[in-house]
């Protein structure tokens, strides 16, 4: 059945289908914004049924737990890399030395010393920084909890549309006294469009969620409008191509059964270039936001997730920053 010609045709149709641009096409759309709840009932039902096993790291969501490791690496390395080491106006004496050329050209010892000094400064700045985070589509709170444990994050608000998974998230939060006692982590049943526009965030995360909503462009727009200056939107989703169909749907759901059947639907996948084009082809957006990092990622059985350099094949993560 799976390998039947009809099915393959459908796959190819899905990959090519312009219907699936769902708002990222720069020539069309903006008309579909009427329905604000945006997430389809089918999707909601699917994730609610997963709520009870969400936190079983060896259960059906194991691959998501493993992916969370990579997400955290992606967020941490980007935030860390783009810290402003020397605030403007600081004298050369007081600031950290940043060589105007590649430090690898220097003798090893001096290079290491310079880099160590920079790293120490980064640690210092991070500790002073208290960032607030909005985790959109937090699910059972895998990413929200991880972010809330970091010492440079002030608070995390996780939002989702499924009451069942939020219940699982709330329950699991009580299992860690560190999270339970502090007020760092809160969950709320709402879509991003219901978050007051006056609430601005340093980091907004939308991991593995754009491919589950009907109008991703609208959701992304909502997120961009709630980012502080210098703040970040981190997202991840899946390119709409044959490789993705093969890995995430055929192998992942049907053959190896790593993720529950029905988790993905190919025509909802979004190419990384579509998002980049959508950002750049609009003057208002391109003048305020830049894509600073895009990385592909691939799941290797018996190893876990690994970053790749091919951001337009399979799964990918993207870091968008509101320019300072």
């Amino acid at each position, binding site marked *: 059945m799976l390998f039947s010609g009809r099915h393959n045709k459908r796959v190819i149709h899905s990959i090519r289908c312009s219907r699936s641009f769902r708002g990222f096409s720069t020539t069309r759309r903006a008309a579909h914004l009427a329905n604000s709840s945006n997430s389809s009932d089918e999707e909601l039902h699917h994730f609610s049924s997963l709520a*009870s*096993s969400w*936190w*079983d*790291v*060896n*259960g059906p969501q194991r691959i998501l*737990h*493993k992916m*969370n*490791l990579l997400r*955290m*690496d992606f967020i*941490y390395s980007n935030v860390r890399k783009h810290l402003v080491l020397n605030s403007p106006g600081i004298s050369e004496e007081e600031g950290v030395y940043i060589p105007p050329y590649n430090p690898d050209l220097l003798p090893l010892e001096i290079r290491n010393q310079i880099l160590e000094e920079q790293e120490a400064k980064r*640690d210092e700045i991070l500790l002073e920084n208290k960032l607030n985070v909005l985790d959109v589509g937090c699910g059972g709170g895998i990413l929200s*909890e*991880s*972010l*809330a*444990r*970091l*010492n440079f994050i002030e608070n995390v608000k996780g939002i989702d549309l499924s009451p069942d998974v939020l219940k699982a998230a709330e*329950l*699991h939060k*009580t*299992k*860690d*006294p560190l999270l339970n006692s502090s007020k760092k982590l809160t969950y709320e049943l709402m879509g991003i469009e219901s978050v007051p526009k006056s609430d601005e965030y340093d980091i907004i995360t939308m991991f593995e969620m754009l491919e589950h909503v009907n109008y991703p462009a609208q959701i992304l727009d909502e997120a961009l409008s709630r980012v502080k200056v210098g703040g970040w939107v981190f997202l991840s989703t899946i390119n709409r191509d044959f490789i993705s169909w093969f890995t995430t749907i055929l192998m992942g759901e049907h053959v190896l059964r790593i993720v529950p059947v029905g988790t993905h639907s190919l025509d909802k996948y979004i190419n990384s270039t579509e998002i980049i084009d959508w950002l750049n082809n609009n003057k208002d957006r391109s003048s305020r936001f830049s894509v600073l990092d895009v990385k592909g990622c691939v799941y290797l059985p018996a190893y876990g997730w690994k970053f790749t350099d091919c951001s337009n094949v399979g799964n990918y993560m993207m870091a968008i920053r509101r320019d300072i």
Partner: protein
Amino acid sequence: MFRSLSRQLATKASINTPSKLQDVVIIGGGPAGLSLLAALKSSNKTKHLKCTLVEGASLDPIRNFGVNPPPEYTNRVVSLTPKTIEYMRDKIGNWNFINQERVNFYDTIVAYDSQDNEARIKFDASTIGDSVLAAMCENLNIQSSLLERIEELNLNTMDPEQKSILYDNTKVVEITGPEVAAEHELPYIDPKEGEPDLDWPTVTLSNGESLQARLLVGADGFNSSVRKFSHIASRGWFYNRFGVVATVKLQYEDYRSLAWQRFLTTGPLAILPLTDNNATIVWSSTPELSELLVSVDDAIFPHLVNAAMALEETDLSYIYSLLKKNPSDMNAVEEIKWRMSRVDSSLVDEGYPLPLESVVPRSRARFPLKMAHADTYTAPRVALIGDAAHSIHPLAGQGLNMGQSDVASLVSALEDGVTRGLDIGSTLVLEQYTANAWPSNHVMLGICDKMHKIFSTDWPPIVFFRGFGIKSLNMLGSFKDVIVRALSGR
């Protein structure tokens, strides 16, 4: 009866006084446990974790060693590889507190076969451009340096919550917790509402306190209570051999920095150099012979070691039989001297270690030799390090070093876990430790096990092939370098 009583007491105690929550509870104050505590507290990423270490015995002998070291070397001496020393210097930071006058570096090991004196192999660190193959250091010296380092770190910590806590003379009465089993056997229990209990293991201590640990680390040796609690199986076997250790004096100081090992069919005998004319010996042997070795007179023992480093095994068994009848038979010494006078004199200076002069009184001790390896080092909220995870034959001097590499792997896994904002007791964090540490330990355990088996026979075909193997190996410089690198942990 006693168990049920103690369990009742334990439950009562836990009802009356709520358990103290700790991020890391380490059971066992040996070199592995102390190293882990010092390493966690030295790392910028993990130093905020609340840590408690529990040791059943008193730590006073260790503290005394630092203040007032005994005049003679103690008999528990271990070999430290350059890699271990580097980790102690750069990461744990206890190397500064080591009593350097009691550490001896050496660069060469000569190993030879009792069945064939020509079958010799020499491992020299200089062939891989290193000046050190290993350093001999007393266990107490290492533990004392670690304690001092932990105390120094405590002094530098402002927040009283973050100071590490050490309990000595404190036994673990009981460990309770949700049924913790090896990952694949663990049934997932869905958290229920109105169930405030943490899934953290609770350790009830003999001082009446109880600790609840986000991560419980077993550094409690071969009979690890943590390993039993977590139902991790440990596989292996006893060799039906005992190791005899002793601190000895050579006739004069050896200016070459050489260690010696002779493979007898009863087990290998090693003489490892300490400073001045001191040395330590490790003699693996059968249960009967090991009893003899600890019971013969102090005056006879050095001669016996000299004989065992040079004479044929038939001569040795004759001498053993004399001493078995009378452990203080001075005739045996005459027998040894006469037989030694007939040994090829060209070999005496270069081919054999310097003769022993005496043995330090009451420094002899024996312990059973075994091989054991836990199936995994981790379970939910549990990690095993050091001898709790593996026991190895001492013939390659790798036991303590394996414990140190466990510590290094576990600390780096926990650092990653903290950077990624994970719960450090989660298997997602811990499985990285097993993945990094288990395979290389397994290879080392396997090699030492096979070495023991190959050399514990005098069956001619095997003697022939191992002799052939050793001689060929000795000529293959590049292959020898691989072994030297493995021995020094490079």
